[in-house]
């Protein structure tokens, strides 16, 4: 269990800048996810924490103590890799025991044959075996200890790799896309299992993924990274409801947030395409906007409301519980996606006119550069604070 503090991390590979001034505090016992598209530098950041990759500038501290000068094995962190990286010719037991053998036994005690005669070797071996069995039981792989990795299924390999990380009880667990090689069903199952494991171990987890559903379902906090920069660090709920900028809003949430052109019409209204919405923007009238509206904040209906966006139904996706309408709104090239109950799917015919009424309270406003502009409730709060 430990705190991890990253200060001003820079990293380049040749001329390519991979990380730019990344500062991040991971709290003790937290499940923090580094989320971003592939190539955003999140795996590199994880490797810098592990000590596998040196940073060009900045520092890493674990529990307040700088670890920049320490070798990976001295940092007391364990890593689970995407490919699992199990030693192929060793059994699961040997794989899991190796970190303990290397740490607890002296060079002489590790020698084959002769090592057994060294004082204390037997007792240490017995302790290691007990520890490996205990962890294997916790992961339900105690039946598989004598198998080689090649004889295991993907999920079993995953557990063996987790077991190898767990036996040492490290301060920090680092996980580099550990679920992405599993099939979809198993991935969803392992999500719950990993979250449960985190609660049981109460250790600090830093988890790297490009899959926002993994990030949203398991994490205490999510750090969104893009192009080597940390865009926002927040809980999954506030990341979704209160994104700091348009890139975060677009990356988090499925289907992708609808983004429409708009303008601040008055102190209490915003014009989106041709529709006036009762939203108080924290910007002067005439400011051009990009208006983000999540699919569930657009209520589709037949009636022409005072502040509804008219459009034509292009496509209906009925997933059972939910139904997504793809609506062509005039003035916007991209279809707008609205979510409604699956039971209502029959109401919408392809090619028919539909009116989408935005929930004014949950509309997100961004300026031309993509930075968030406060809306009414937030603006009011700012006034009372000021």
């Amino acid at each position, binding site marked *: 269990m430990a705190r991890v503090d990253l200060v001003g991390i820079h990293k380049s590979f040749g001329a390519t800048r991979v990380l730019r001034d990344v500062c991040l505090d991971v709290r003790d016992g937290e499940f923090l996810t580094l989320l971003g598209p592939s190539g955003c530098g999140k795996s590199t950041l994880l*490797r810098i924490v*592990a000590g*596998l990759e040196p940073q060009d500038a900045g520092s890493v501290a674990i529990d307040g103590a700088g670890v920049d000068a320490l*070798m*990976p*094995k001295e940092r007391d*962190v*364990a*890593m689970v*890799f*995407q*490919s699992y*990286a*199990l*030693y*192929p*010719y060793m059994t699961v037991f040997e794989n899991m025991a*190796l*970190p303990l053998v*290397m*740490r607890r036994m002296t060079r002489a005690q590790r020698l084959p044959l002769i090592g057994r005669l060294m004082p204390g070797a037997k007792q240490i071996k017995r302790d290691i075996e007990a520890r490996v069995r205990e962890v294997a039981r916790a992961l339900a792989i105690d039946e598989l200890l004598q198998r080689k990795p090649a004889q295991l299924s993907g999920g079993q390999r995953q557990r063996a790799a987790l077991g*190898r990380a767990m036996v040492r009880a490290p301060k920090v667990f680092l996980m580099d896309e550990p679920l992405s090689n599993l099939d979809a069903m198993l991935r969803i199952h392992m999500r719950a299992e990993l979250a449960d494991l985190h609660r049981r171990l109460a250790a600090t987890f830093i988890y790297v993924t490009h899959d926002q559903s993994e990030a949203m379902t398991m994490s205490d906090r999510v750090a969104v990274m893009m192009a080597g920069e940390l865009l926002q660090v927040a809980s999954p709920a506030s990341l979704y409801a209160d994104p700091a900028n348009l890139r975060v809003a677009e990356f988090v949430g499925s289907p992708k947030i609808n983004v429409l052109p708009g303008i601040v019409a008055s102190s209490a209204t915003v014009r989106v395409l041709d529709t006036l919405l009762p939203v108080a923007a924290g910007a002067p009238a005439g400011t051009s906007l990009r208006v983000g509206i999540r699919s569930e904040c657009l209520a589709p209906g037949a009636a022409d409301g005072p502040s509804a966006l008219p459009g034509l139904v292009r496509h209906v996706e009925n997933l059972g519980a939910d139904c997504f309408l793809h609506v062509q709104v005039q003035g916007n090239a991209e279809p707008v996606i609205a979510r409604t109950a699956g039971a209502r799917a029959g109401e919408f015919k392809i090619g028919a006119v539909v009116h989408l009424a935005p929930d004014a309270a949950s509309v997100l406003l961004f300026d031309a550069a993509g930075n968030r502009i406060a809306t009414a409730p937030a603006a009011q709060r700012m006034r009372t604070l000021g």
Partner: protein
Amino acid sequence: MIGRPSPWFDLVRHVTLLAGAAVMLAPFVWMTVTSFKPPHEIFAAELTLLPRQWHAYENYREAFTKVPMLRYLLNGAIVTSAIFALQVLVAVPCAYALAKLDFRGRGLIFAMVLLGILIPSHVPAIPLYIMLWQVKLLNTYAALVIPFVISVFGIFLMRQFFKTVPDELIQAARLDGLSEFAIVWRIMVPAAMPAVISFGIFSVVAHWNDYFWPLLVINSRELAPPPLGVAYFRNEEAGHDYGPLMAGAVIIIAPLVLAFLAAQRRFIEGMTMTGLKG
């Protein structure tokens, strides 16, 4: 390829391959049957595959008694195993550094390794001879072993193989607390076992059969490796008694053939995985 090739193509292919195999095997077969024949049959005008009168016992007894054949075999075993062990000891860490560690000058050093492969072994023979003479090691086992300890071919072969071992495996090992040397011997070598074995076969075959270098540096008969031993045999017999000579030749290649048959699968694995053709 869609569907099976026509049976005619199959036939032609097999006939061609069989003809090639026959050409390759014929000298060995001839050597073996000659070692079973009495002298008058060897020089007889008509060719027969099997001897009419078996003379194997006499030929082999002569091969073992006229010259110390077992001594030569022992010398061969000592020299080839010492060479191979030391080659692995040098080549494996070098190959690991060239394949997986990032350091200044790595490209240059690797280029020098490749250059080393291009130099025929006979070129440095005279400088090596003079060096061994200066350190007074001529006519010792050391003279047979030392020049071959650094095998650039071995470094190259192992480096190509290590390249295919995923980096994540090495990173996992570093986090598990293994030193770089422990990574080399406990992680890389077991993962690259087919390459180690095929390199072993290359190395053992080359040095078991080496005639040129032992001829230069060895004078004492007790130190002669097998090919030199057979040559002594031939000199003594003045080239007339082919039966025992062939028996001697069979004896010295037998260990190699047996070793190859035992490790055949690994050998082919090693060849195909490195993409190298013998």
